[in-house]
């Protein structure tokens, strides 16, 4: 499913003078099926507000733009949000705090019971088993544990299993890497990469980790003041670093390295992924020697 957002604006507390806030301002964006789409931007730039529009958790305001996702037209009053939400999985920031059931199994099965009314126990178990295995758990070990006796990182993986269990086509994640240790982060990233293109077609991810964004996303949008400041491949977005830094963002390490080397008179051209940077640099270095 393609996501097409046209002229979207959103105002918080419209009727209050002191709380009035225009969080989104005529935003236009298209996300294609199959994208691994990164969203970056300073705090308060409207990223979370934007993604919550995509599954109807924040409703469109009258005459403030349109969103069309596949066959769903969100500005249509008759739009079936339940069906939409089963197609679009949303993992919130600090998702580990949404767990509530007595066992991991029940918690993960929550979405299944909500979305697929009348599904058999056996089918449910199949889905839950799939999801828990996908996020790297041993199903028989984990299923009867209480979610509250797990570590933070494990809880987060259970929460994600609870979202992907209904096999959404699009998975949206709001800063999922915050607070994970390097190992947990690495595991999490490879989990996402594994799912992408197979279990979920499109992944949209908000992150402040530029290295991660640059390394994994095929497209990146930079939010600023409720608008898209810039959009394109990581290379296109991070190439002109000054303007991003002036927005209060950082660059991926490879971009810093390229800039630094340029100042020393060494021009390296890569797509800013570590692998490509290393090979371009090695080529260049060896070339100099000869």
């Amino acid at each position, binding site marked *: 499913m393609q996501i097409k957002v046209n002229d979207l604006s959103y105002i918080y507390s419209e009727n209050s003078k002191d709380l009035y806030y225009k969080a989104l301002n005529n935003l236009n964006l298209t996300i294609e099926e199959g994208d691994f789409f990164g969203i970056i931007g300073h705090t308060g730039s409207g990223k979370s507000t934007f993604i919550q529009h995509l599954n109807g958790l924040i409703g469109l305001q009258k005459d403030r733009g349109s969103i069309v996702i596949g066959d769903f037209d969100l500005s249509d009053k008759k739009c079936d949000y339940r069906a939409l*939400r089963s197609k679009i*999985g949303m993992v*919130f920031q600090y*998702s580990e*705090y949404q767990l*509530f059931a007595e066992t991991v199994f029940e918690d993960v099965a*929550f979405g299944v019971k909500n*979305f697929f009314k009348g599904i058999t126990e056996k089918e449910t178990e199949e889905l839950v088993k799939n999801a828990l295995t996908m996020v790297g758990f041993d199903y028989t070990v984990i299923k009867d544990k209480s979610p509250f006796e797990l570590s933070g990182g494990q809880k987060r993986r259970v929460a994600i299993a609870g979202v992907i269990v209904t096999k959404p086509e699009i998975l949206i994640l709001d800063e999922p890497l915050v607070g994970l240790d390097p190992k947990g982060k690495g595991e999490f990233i490879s989990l996402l990469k594994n799912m992408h293109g197979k279990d979920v077609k499109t992944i949209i991810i908000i992150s402040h980790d530029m290295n991660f964004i640059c390394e994994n996303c095929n497209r990146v949008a930079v939010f600023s003041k409720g608008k898209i400041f810039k959009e394109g491949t990581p290379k296109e977005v991070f190439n002109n670093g000054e303007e991003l830094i002036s927005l209060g963002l950082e660059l991926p390490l490879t971009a810093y390295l390229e800039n630094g080397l340029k100042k020393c008179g060494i021009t390296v051209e890569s797509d800013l992924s570590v692998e490509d940077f290393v090979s371009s640099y090695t080529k260049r270095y060896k070339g100099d020697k000869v």
Partner: protein
Amino acid sequence: MKDITFGQYFPAKSFVHSLNASVKILLTIAFIVAVFLVNQYYFLGFALCFLFILITTAFAKIPFTKLLSSVRAVVFIVVFSAVLQVFFNKTGKVVFSWRFIKITDAGVYTAIYITVRILLIVIGASLLTYTTSPVEIADGLEFLLYPLKVIRFPVHEFALIMSIALRFIPTLMNETGRIIKAQKARGADFESGNIFKRAKALIPVLIPLLISAFRRADELADAMDARCYAGSKKRTKYKKATFSFRDAIGFITLGGLIAGVVLLNGFFGVIV
């Protein structure tokens, strides 16, 4: 949920804001007493109370629309009790009857009386919370309750509990919104079904909320420990509340209001 503005502090620099919090609490109580003193059959005292509200609001530099929004929270209770009075009060003269419905003059009278009373009290109380921050209110209460120390009532701890509770209301409201959204994204449905079904649908919200409240309480306790907090023993205050000439003006005005109400009651009681 965002619409409930009842009791939210409205920061400004004004005469009313600058009054001592303890004094404001006392004045609020006095105001409520004045409202209760108004004679059941002669409403003129209400006009005086309302005038008092208007003047105070003007002096507090609070927009008048704020008064309306504080009323919004209690609309249901007000309408409910008024309707009850109009239709079920059987005393007095019947002024309207249709089939089994009989409306009496006393019923209508009492309905108006109760409505105005509740509205005035709510507005009066919200004037206190609009012009006094939760911390100030807690400090003011602590001061007022000080005499209870004699009977070993833990006044300071009580005030601290109050101010912490007040402080966490907005935080927990935010948290509730967040959790509701997270569960909705997983297909939770809070809007349909009968009352039992809806109550059951709240479990996935309440449990995470409780857990996070306990977590926050734990963290707060640790933070207080780390700063060597040790109860009420020899604590000094960062902001010392003082009394000034303005507070005297407050007392005088309210004294005037009560006297006015009593006078109006008596006056009309005699004439009519």
